[in-house]
């Protein structure tokens, strides 16, 4: 069956089934299958036709994903989290037609992985305070500076880079946004080991790295606005949480409960039920706000979802460790694991990994500020750094 102009959820499902029938995800290569999905417009259904989308509401994406992943297709977010969840919407929103043409497809098929060069040693929560300098030279930019906590930099082909182009302007106004080629000779990646034993993230040093001006996203000095697109999408992507009932971290806890009856107690049952309720309530909230029903404005669902899921994940794995009792204190090995998604890690490793959930992608303190200030309209914090030139802001 062919769907000429898909408009409804059923059309999207039919289209996805047609792709699966044509290119079987269990027997063809990832590139082939994902490429077919992209060409059919099922990568991001809300993107334009020809850019991996169908120009449909974003709420219909889950229908496509259910079919594609249900048939054994890979989860594009897990394949290329920074690419799929953040680079794609940023490039679509702010990049030239040539950049969109060049990057969206190999990004979706995960032939080219992406990373996000935002945080620096002196600029974490206060991202707009960053110091990495980009200076114009002809039709190129020369970049020098240090980034930190850069997930996947050791495997990424391209990076989303936020750099300072004018240190004499107030901090938010002197930033510009670029696509950086990680193969540039001026880029050096050094792995950072984390408390789990893994090394998902890195330090990235840029020494006179070169970026053509055509790889700029948005206008010079507009980097902060462009970065907001990335951050909102980052929070939606990691905060969306599991889309289906009874999946995600809570499913791991429930499976522990079911498979280890000898470890059960009434107190644990109560805790697990409460966690289950919260998982369900936040999952339902994600789909309600994504669907635009009672919408609280762009990014609301991502911010709320990220905030709640981060703390919930931690409590779920705390529950698992408590339920395991003495066994919870064991740790198989601190060797680096290949797998970086909590869902398939041993519980102890997932438990340690979850400590990062309230830090990565915006700390919970910062997100509570965002909810209070943007969604409820409460006043901002008292600050002394917003109007002075970036050079004069105290650091430490």
């Amino acid at each position, binding site marked *: 069956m062919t769907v000429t102009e898909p408009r409804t959820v059923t059309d999207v499902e039919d289209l996805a089934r047609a792709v699966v029938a044509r290119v079987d995800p269990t027997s063809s290569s990832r590139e082939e299958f994902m490429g077919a999905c992209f060409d059919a417009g099922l990568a991001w259904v809300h993107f334009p036709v020809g850019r991996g989308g169908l120009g449909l509401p974003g709420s219909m994406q889950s229908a496509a994903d259910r079919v594609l992943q249900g048939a054994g297709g890979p989860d594009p977010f897990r394949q290329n989290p920074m690419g799929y969840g953040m680079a794609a919407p940023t490039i679509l929103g702010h990049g030239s037609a040539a950049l969109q043409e060049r990057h969206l497809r190999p990004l979706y098929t995960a032939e080219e992985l992406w990373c996000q060069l935002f945080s620096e040693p002196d600029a974490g929560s206060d991202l707009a305070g960053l110091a990495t300098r980009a200076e114009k030279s002809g039709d190129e930019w020369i970049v020098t500076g240090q980034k930190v906590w850069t997930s996947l930099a050791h495997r990424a082909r391209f990076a989303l880079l936020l750099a300072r182009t004018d240190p004499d302007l107030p901090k938010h106004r002197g930033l510009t946004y670029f696509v950086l080629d990680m193969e540039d000779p001026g880029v050096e990646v050094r792995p950072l080991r984390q408390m789990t034993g893994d090394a998902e993230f890195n330090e990235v040093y840029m020494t006179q790295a070169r970026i053509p001006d055509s790889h700029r996203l948005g206008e010079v000095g507009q980097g902060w606005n462009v970065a907001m697109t990335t951050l909102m999408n980052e929070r939606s992507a990691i905060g969306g949480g599991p889309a289906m009932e009874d999946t995600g971290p809570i499913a791991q806890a*429930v499976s522990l409960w079911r498979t280890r009856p000898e470890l059960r107690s009434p107190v644990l049952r109560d805790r697990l*039920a409460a966690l*289950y309720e919260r998982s369900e309530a936040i999952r339902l909230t994600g789909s309600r706000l994504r669907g635009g029903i009672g919408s609280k404005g762009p990014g609301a669902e991502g911010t709320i979802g990220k905030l709640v899921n981060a703390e919930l994940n931690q409590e779920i794995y705390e529950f698992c460790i408590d339920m395991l009792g003495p066994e919870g204190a064991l740790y198989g090995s601190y060797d680096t694991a290949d797998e970086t998604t909590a869902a398939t890690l041993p519980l102890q490793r997932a438990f340690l990994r979850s400590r990062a959930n309230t830090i990565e992608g915006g700390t919970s303190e910062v997100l509570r500020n965002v909810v209070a200030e943007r969604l*409820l309209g*409460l*006043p901002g914090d008292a600050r002394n750094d917003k109007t002075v030139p970036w050079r004069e802001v105290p650091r430490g």
Partner: protein
Amino acid sequence: MASSVAEAQQEREELRSMVRGLCEREVPLAQVRRLMETPAGDDPAVWRRLADLDLLGLVVPAEFGGSGGDLLTLVAAAEELGRGLVPGPFLGTVGLAATALQLSEDPAAQQAYLSRLVAGDLRATVVAQDQLGRWAPAAPTTTATSTGDGWALTGTSTHVVDAVGADLLLVAAQAAGGVGVFAVQTGAPGVQVEALSTMDLTRRQGRVVLDGASGVLVGSLDRGREVLERTGDVAVVLLGAMQIGVAQKLLELSVDYAKTRFQFGRPIGGFQGVKHRCADMMVRVEMARSAVLHAAAVADAGGSGLPRAASLAGSTASAAAVRTGSDAIQVHGGIGFTWESPVHLYYKRAVGDAALLGTVADHRDRYASIVLDD
């Protein structure tokens, strides 16, 4: 499909603003305060207005004077009635009694009561509480004995919402052949209803003592338990909607106050201790709202998932409302502890409602038995 969903959503929003307008105009908080000091607790003229606007028959079929809508629509209205702390027997009459009658598949009882109920001429409630006031539809403590041409009911139930002032009681009772729902007239011999003195003065509870009271079986003894359990679940969803209305109002009062109350030369909402509390209040309200809307949608779809969804809605909404209330008091400081401030009225409603038709612990226990127990 997409457009009809959007249209239904649009209609619900219109209904919502209509009900909010009605509450603000006809039962402003000053009026609620006046009514809560009266013995009856509510204003018959307001009840009549709700009936005139067809708010009592939103989900009742047209043949009984209702408008045959879905529970999602009724939930929008219930949220606003909660937000307005509107006194009156809405939960008992619409949430419980009308639901039980509709589920009873008993045309005679429906004929006798539903149109009058929708018209505002009959106040009713369901009595399925035990002697401690626990909602116990599966194992009623009242008994029904056959008298040949009818039934005689004996037993005590307490914390019965909207029992005081009701004309009709639909009583859950154990008969020899099963659990049944029995229609009992409050004026009849052997029926005693005493008002309880409640913390929340805007919602009334009563103690119902039946001593050989005459009852008419509604529906059959085979389906009585099923009708009562589903009735309870539907009413829990509506009660949850009212809790959301209360919690939303508490959030708004707190945010408004945090923007206008100055200390240390700035609005207190600029301090993270205050603003993060407000952020958490909002998140909690939104999550509870999702759970309630989901349960209403599940009920409308008619499947077997209602007990799970209703338990989630009941515990999430009540926990959110109570916590939003205590947070609101904290954000308001000393003012929040006064009788003059509106905060305590909403807080008491949240606390009182959290004890009706199952506590948070009861709902969570049932949820656990559905999702966790073998």
